[in-house]
């Protein structure tokens, strides 16, 4: 390279300058764009504004994760509709728009740029940690607070002051679960099966760390891919170690298929997992008989645990004609926290809104939210068991 360049410095230097100019222009343009569109920096975006408050919900509405996205949207929409019925915030309506990220991080980042340019004040979602992590830097730069339904510890590692979780992290879910399995149940032989997606990887690391701290090494640690459909190789290995319980770290549908196939292979040990294992999609996919005795670590076990959850479930049923579950409840809590922060800050945006969210103390369906610097507001889950196709609290 260098040798060919020396004899002809002129011919070579011209295109390089042109390229540099182009890069500079692009950078300047990008800077100008973000500067213009960052909410809270121009006058008409701050409290003085009287128009509707624009809030975006981003969640998968198509693809294998669409049921998750659908629950999240329904929960968030319910909260926003309730606030609007009560007159909104300072007389301003909350205008909500749904974006479909298809569970895909690239689509997510494109949506993030749209949120910036269309001056959304805050974002609710997504349920997919990988998508949220992909969107994070863009939203942080534009100072748009984001209340996510993701639970991966990677969200905390992002260290964005504009990112808040509406539920516990994988570490919380899985250390509670590991403690229950090892200390309360006395299980020593625990097999693991997780997928290599962002959720599964998070679950894998968090659970493995938790059981090792309790002095237990898993009998086998099987990793599958997110689009795998056939699990006999992994399940046969698990069967040969004769585990007392099998930890599963995978989303609803795949986890359902794993459990279904495990039962067909004659594995009788109960499964144990986090949020996805408490959902109707998991139970339907595997079949009611197959999921009996599944141990679930979840901050929201059923609609009957408290007066607040009963009220929420009734409103959800009235609005959508469907039974409420964890993900709707999470998004409902998240949306309520955002709206409460908007009220206490008189409809502020940007940094002020993020600070208001951090200061919000909220008694939600999932527990008492108190945000720390990492953006995590809740650090407790409870243990439930599936009996007759229903998730019930562990007695």
């Amino acid at each position, binding site marked *: 390279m260098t040798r060919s360049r020396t004899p002809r410095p002129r011919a070579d230097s011209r295109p390089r300058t042109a390229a540099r100019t182009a890069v500079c222009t692009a950078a300047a343009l990008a800077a100008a764009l973000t500067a213009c569109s960052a909410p809270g920096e121009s006058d008409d975006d701050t409290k003085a504004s009287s128009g509707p408050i624009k809030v975006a919900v981003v969640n998968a509405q198509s693809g294998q994760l669409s049921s998750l996205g659908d629950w999240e949207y329904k929960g968030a929409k319910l909260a926003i509709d309730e606030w609007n019925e009560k007159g909104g915030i300072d007389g301003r309506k909350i205008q909500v728009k749904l974006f479909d990220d298809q569970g895909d991080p690239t689509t997510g980042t494109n949506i993030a740029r749209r949120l910036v340019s269309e001056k959304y004040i805050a974002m609710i979602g997504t349920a997919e940690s990988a998508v949220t992590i992909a969107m994070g830097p863009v939203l942080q730069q534009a100072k748009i607070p984001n209340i996510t339904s993701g639970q991966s510890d990677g969200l905390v590692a992002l260290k964005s002051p504009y990112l808040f979780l509406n539920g516990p992290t994988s570490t919380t879910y899985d250390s509670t679960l590991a403690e229950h399995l090892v200390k309360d149940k006395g299980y020593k032989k625990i097999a693991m099966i997780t997928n290599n997606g962002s959720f599964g990887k998070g679950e894998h690391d968090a659970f493995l760390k938790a059981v090792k701290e309790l002095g237990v090494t898993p009998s086998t640690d099987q990793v599958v891919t997110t689009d795998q459909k056939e699990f006999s*190789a992994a399940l046969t290995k698990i069967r040969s170690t004769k585990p007392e319980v099998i930890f599963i770290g995978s989303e609803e549908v795949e986890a359902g298929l794993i459990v279904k196939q495990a039962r067909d292979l004659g594995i009788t040990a109960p499964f144990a997992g986090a949020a996805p294992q408490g959902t109707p999609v998991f139970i339907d996919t595997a079949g009611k008989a197959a999921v009996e005795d599944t141990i679930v670590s979840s901050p929201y076990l059923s609609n009957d645990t408290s007066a607040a959850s009963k009220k929420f479930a009734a409103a959800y049923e009235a609005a959508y004609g469907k039974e409420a579950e964890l993900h709707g409840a999470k998004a409902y809590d998240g949306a309520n926290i955002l709206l409460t922060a908007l009220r206490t800050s008189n409809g502020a945006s940007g940094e002020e809104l993020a600070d208001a969210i951090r200061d919000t103390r909220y008694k939600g369906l999932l527990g008492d939210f108190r945000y720390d610097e990492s953006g995590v507001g809740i650090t407790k889950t409870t243990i439930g068991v599936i009996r007759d196709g229903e998730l019930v609290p562990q007695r």
Partner: protein
Amino acid sequence: MQETLQTLVGGLSLGAVYALVAMGFSLVYRTMGLVNFAHADIAMIGAYAASTFYLTSKLPFAVAMVVAIAVTAAIGLVIERVLRPLENKDFDLMLIGTIGFGIVLQAVAILIWGTTGRAVRSPVRSAPLDLFGVRVRTYDLLVMAVAALAVLGLAWFLARTKRGAAMQAVAMDHEAATAVGIDVGRSNALAFSIGAGLAALAGGLVGPMLYVDASLGGALGIKGFAAAMLGGFGSIPGAVVGGLAIGVLDSYAAGHFQGYSVLVTFLVFTAAIMIRPMGVFGERTVSRA
């Protein structure tokens, strides 16, 4: 040993489904020289239709399957009819047309059945068989038997019936076939509808094994397409061998390479295609463009 056999059994059942998908790809390619990219999504529609007639209309599983096959065969006819004016004129546009139909079918599925998808319960209630510690699901046996019947039926149709022979003739030389009075359009329509029917058979059968939603086509299509390539695109026995090979390969890769199994499957597939670009049963390619 037990583990190896169990992995083999698991791979064969899904492999049988991939073989059915590959057969549909191959049949249309063989007759028209066209890769029908909507094929996987037709399989998805077939899976949805079968599950709807089975679960919602409470028809017996076999009847639901037959109705689903009829529905997708009709869809196949429609696609062929729309593409027919392009035949021998703009081949690329025909290819893009099939991609377009795939997208339309996915959108239609979401419109009709929503985004959530559904779990289909197995129509066979008996417990898995236990052969020396290897558990074989009775439903998997059913799938393999139906797939085998479909292969034999298609082979018989192509070799022994007049219409089948006409389709073969069109595949070899469509101008000569036209000259001897074979209706090429009708032959193509037949190929498309049989291909679509096979897709529904694959989709309907895989429903109780997996989960039916609008993205099912993606899961079946890539493996089915790879199976058709591996066996030799256009070859019916090749589709069967390719399907089973991909199913088993996938299953073993999952066992040995865990999280990297997809990568390994497709690396092996790529290597195989590089060594034998025409596939195992590679015939000369049909080129109508």
